[in-house]
C-alpha cells in the first residue's frame, strides 16, 4: 500500500491532524524550555482569542485576511503551482486599492467606493501574479524563484512610491494620507456592541463568500475540474485537452487577485491608509494555511481562524508572558509549514502498517 492507496479518512484527517499536533508539540517543547508552562499558555491563548467576544472578533478579523491569502496560495497549488508571492501580491493590491481611494474618495458614494477599492485591489494583485505566471507558462521560468523576486521588487517599489508620491506634505510617517470616512468598510462592532471597538468588518463576509465561490468552482465547475487535473497529472491534462499555458496564467492571475483582496480587510477595514509593509507576513501565513487546510475551503477556513487565534491570543500572551513574544508564532507558523507541507507523509508508513495489520 502506498500513500495513494490509503483511504480518504486517513489522508484527509488523520495525517493532517498528526502533522499539526507534531508542530504544536515542538512549539510546546520550545515554550517549556523557556520556562513557561505550555498548557497555561494555551489556556491564556484560548481565553483571549476565542472565549472573550472582543478577542474572538479580532481573531476573525485577522482570519479574514488569511482566508484570502490562503485561498490565493490554495488555488495556485491546485494547479500545481507554488505561489510564494502572495505577500507581494497583497502589497501591490493594496496600492491598487489606495490609488482608487485617493482618486475617488471625495467624489463617489460609499458603496461605489468600496466596489472600486475591491476592484483596484484585485486588479493590481492579479497583475503582480500575472507576470510570473506568464514567464512560467511561456518561458519555463520557475514560478517559485520569480514570485520570491517579485516580493522583493514590490517591497522596494512600494518603498519608493510611498516615500516619493504618497506621503502627504508635512507628514513624517511612511504612509499615505487617511482616506475619507466614506471609504470605510462597515464594522461589525456597530451592529454587535458586545464586540467592542473591533476592526472586524464586512470583509469577513466577503472572505466567506470567496471561500464559498472557491469551493463551488473547484469542486463543481468544469473549469475547476481542469485546474485540479492539471495539478494532479499534467500529461493526462494534456490528453484531456486542457490548454495548459493559458490555464497557468489565468490561475496565477486569479491567485494574485485573491491575495490582493486581502488588503481590503487590512486597509479599508482597519487602518484606512496605506502604510509601509502593512502586509506583515500575511502572504506567508497564506502558505501555511493552504498546506494545513489541504486546499479545501473548510480546511482553509479553520486554518485561517486558527492562525487568527494564534495572532490575537499570541498578542495577549506576549503581554502576560514576556518570554513568549509574538514572534513565537512566526516560529509556530514555520513548524506548521514544515510538518504539514514538507513532511506531510512522515506518519504515513506507520499508519499503513497499522492498516495492514488490521486487515490481516
Amino acid at each position: 500500500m502506498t500513500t495513494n492507496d490509503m483511504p480518504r479518512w486517513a489522508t484527509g484527517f488523520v495525517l493532517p491532524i498528526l502533522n499539526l499536533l507534531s508542530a504544536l508539540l515542538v512549539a510546546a517543547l520550545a515554550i517549556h524550555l523557556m520556562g513557561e508552562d505550555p498548557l497555561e499558555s494555551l489556556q491564556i491563548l484560548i481565553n483571549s482569542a476565542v472565549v472573550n467576544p472582543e478577542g474572538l472578533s479580532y481573531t476573525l478579523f485577522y482570519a479574514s485576511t488569511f482566508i484570502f491569502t490562503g485561498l490565493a496560495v490554495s488555488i495556485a497549488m491546485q494547479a500545481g503551482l507554488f505561489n510564494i508571492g502572495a505577500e507581494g501580491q497583497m502589497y501591490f493590491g493594496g496600492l491598487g486599492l489606495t490609488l482608487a481611494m485617493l482618486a475617488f474618495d471625495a467624489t463617489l458614494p460609499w458603496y461605489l467606493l468600496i466596489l472600486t477599492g475591491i476592484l483596484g485591489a484585485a486588479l493590481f494583485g492579479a497583475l503582480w501574479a500575472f507576470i510570473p505566471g506568464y514567464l512560467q507558462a511561456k518561458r519555463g521560468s520557475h514560478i517559485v524563484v520569480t514570485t520570491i523576486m517579485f516580493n522583493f521588487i514590490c517591497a522596494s517599489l512600494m518603498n519608493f512610491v510611498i516615500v516619493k508620491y504618497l506621503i502627504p506634505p508635512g507628514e513624517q510617517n511612511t504612509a499615505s494620507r487617511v482616506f475619507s470616512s466614506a471609504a470605510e468598510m462597515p464594522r461589525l462592532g456597530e451592529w454587535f456592541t458586545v464586540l467592542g471597538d473591533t476592526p472586524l468588518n464586512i470583509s469577513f463576509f466577503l472572505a466567506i463568500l470567496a471561500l464559498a465561490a472557491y469551493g463551488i468552482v473547484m469542486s463543481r465547475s468544469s473549469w475547476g475540474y481542469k485546474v485540479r487535473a492539471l495539478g494532479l497529472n499534467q500529461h493526462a491534462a494534456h490528453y484531456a485537452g486542457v490548454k495548459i499555458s493559458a490555464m497557468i496564467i489565468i490561475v496565477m492571475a486569479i491567485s494574485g487577485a485573491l491575495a490582493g483582496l486581502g488588503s481590503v480587510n487590512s486597509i479599508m477595514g482597519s487602518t484606512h491608509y496605506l502604510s509601509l509593509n502593512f502586509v506583515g507576513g500575511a502572504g506567508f501565513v497564506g502558505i501555511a494555511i493552504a498546506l494545513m487546510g489541504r486546499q479545501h475551503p473548510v480546511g482553509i477556513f479553520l486554518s485561517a481562524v486558527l492562525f487568527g487565534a494564534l495572532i490575537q491570543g499570541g498578542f495577549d500572551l506576549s503581554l502576560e508572558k514576556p518570554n513568549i513574544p509574538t514572534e513565537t508564532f512566526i516560529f509556530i507558523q514555520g513548524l506548521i509549514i514544515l510538518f504539514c507541507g514538507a513532511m506531510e507523509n512522515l506518519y504515513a508508513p506507520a499508519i499503513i502498517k497499522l492498516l495492514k495489520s488490521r486487515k490481516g
Partner: protein
Amino acid sequence: MTPAVEFRNISKHFGAVKANTDVSFSIAKGAIHGLVGENGAGKSTLMSILYGYYRADGGEILLDGKAQQIHNSHEAIGLGIGMVHQHFMLVENMTVLDNVMLGSEGGFRLREHRAETEKKLREICQRYRLDVDPLATIHDLSVGAQQRVEILKQIYRSANILILDEPTAVLTAQETESLFEILKLFKEQGKTIILITHKLQEIMDITDTVTVMRGGRVVGAVETAATSKEELANMMVGRPIENNLPRAPYNPGKPVLEVKNLQLVDDNGVKLLQDIGFTLRAGEIVAIAGVSGNGQSELMEILSGMKLPTSGAVDFEGKALPYPKGGDADGLPTKFRELGIGHVPEDRLRDGVIKAFSVMHNTFFGYQDKVRNKWGLIDFKGIAQRCAGLLKEFDVRPANPDLRIGLLSGGNQQKVVIAREVLAKPKLMLVGQPTRGVDIGTIESIHTQLLALRDQGVAILLVSVELEEVRALADRILVMCGGKITGELKIDEFDTTRIGLLMGGMHKH
C-alpha cells in the same frame, strides 16, 4: 569449448506473470548471439537476470563453465558483463572522459587519473574504431556517438560479454552499419556479444547463433547460417492464433481517416515516422502490429492531437485536421474530440485517467466542457445517472462510482476509459494497447466491445503488440517497423511468418 554464458533452467516470475520459464541455452565464446522475440517474450527479463538487476527464482547461470551468483550490477561488471541499455546512462553536460571515470575515478584528485584514462580511451577507440573524442561533451554528440560512448564505457571496464538491448532503434542506417563493424572487431578480439533485437535482417546480417523466445520460453536455438528469416519469423510468432469472436461481415463504408505522407522527426534528427500513409473506413478495424518503439505510439499521439507532425496531412471525414502551423499541441485534443475522434491511450495511468479522481469523475475526463450547464457547473446528476448505466453495461467492478479510480484493477480502469470514449459516440476510435495490464477475463469483454463498435459503423485504429489481439479484432493489418509501414495484409491473409517478417523489418517488395 566452454561456452561464455550458459543458462540452465532459468525461471522468473513476477506475481502471476511467468516472465521466464525453464530457459536453457548457451552462448559460445567469441560469438555474436542474437536474442529474438516479440514484446513480453522474456528476453529483457533474462538479460536483466544476467546483469544482476533481478535474481532468478530457479536455475543457474554459468560463466565460463563456473556457476555464478550475480546479486547486482556491480558484481556483473566485476564478472566482465557489460550492458548497453536502450536509455543511455550518461550525464549530458560532462565529457566522455568524465562519464567513463564516474564511479571509478581512481583517487581524490581527478587530474592524475584523467591523463591515464584519456590515453586508455584513445587506445580503445582506435582498436575498435569507435571514433569518439574523449574530451567531447555528451550533448554535443549524435545519438549514435552517444551509444558508442556507452560501448566504450563497457570496454573500459573490461567487459568480455557485451549485451546490447535493441541498439539500432535510435540509429540511422549508416550508424547501424558502423555499429556492426565495431561489433565485428569485438568478435575478433575474442569478446562475446549478445544482441537483443526483433529485427530479422540484423540477425541474418551479423549474428552467428540465435535464440528465439516466446511466452517466456525458448522456442528455438539455431545457427544463423543454418536458418532463414522465414523460419525465424515463424518461431518468433508462430503459434496457432484463432479468432473465435463473432462479427458482422466486412462491409466498410466511407473513408473516415486519410493519412497522407506523415513524417515526424525529433530534436536529434531521428526519423520517428517516415512516409506514413493509409486510409481507414467506417465500420472497419485497422490494426497496426509491430514491436513497440517503432513509431506506433507517436502515430497515435499525432492522430489524437497530442503531438504535432513534422510534415504531412491527415484528413478526417474529408476535411484536414486542424494542426496549427508552428507552436504546439496545447489544447488540441479537445478540438479533435469535438470532431468525433475518441482516444483510448496506450498509457492509461499517465494519460488516460486521474488516479486520485473518483470513477465517476473519470467518466467525463476529456469531455468536461460538454457536461456543464450554462453556468459552467458540471451536471453531476446527469453524470451520476450515466455513470451508473456505464458501470453496469461495461461490468466495472467494484461498481462504486465514488471509489478512487487508482484503486481499481487495470482491467476495470480500462473498461471505464473505453466506456467513456464510447459514450461520446465518436466516428473514429484510436485504441492503443487496450488490454495491456488487463486480466484474461476482461480481455474478451473488451474485444467484444470493440467489435460491437465496429459493427455499428465506427472506424477503429488499433495499435497492439499482441498478435492474438490483432488476429481477433482486425479487418486489415498494417505492420510498422523503424517508423515505416513495412506491409499491409487483409485478415484472411493472416500468416504468422509473413507478419513476423514484416515486424522484423522486412519490407514487402
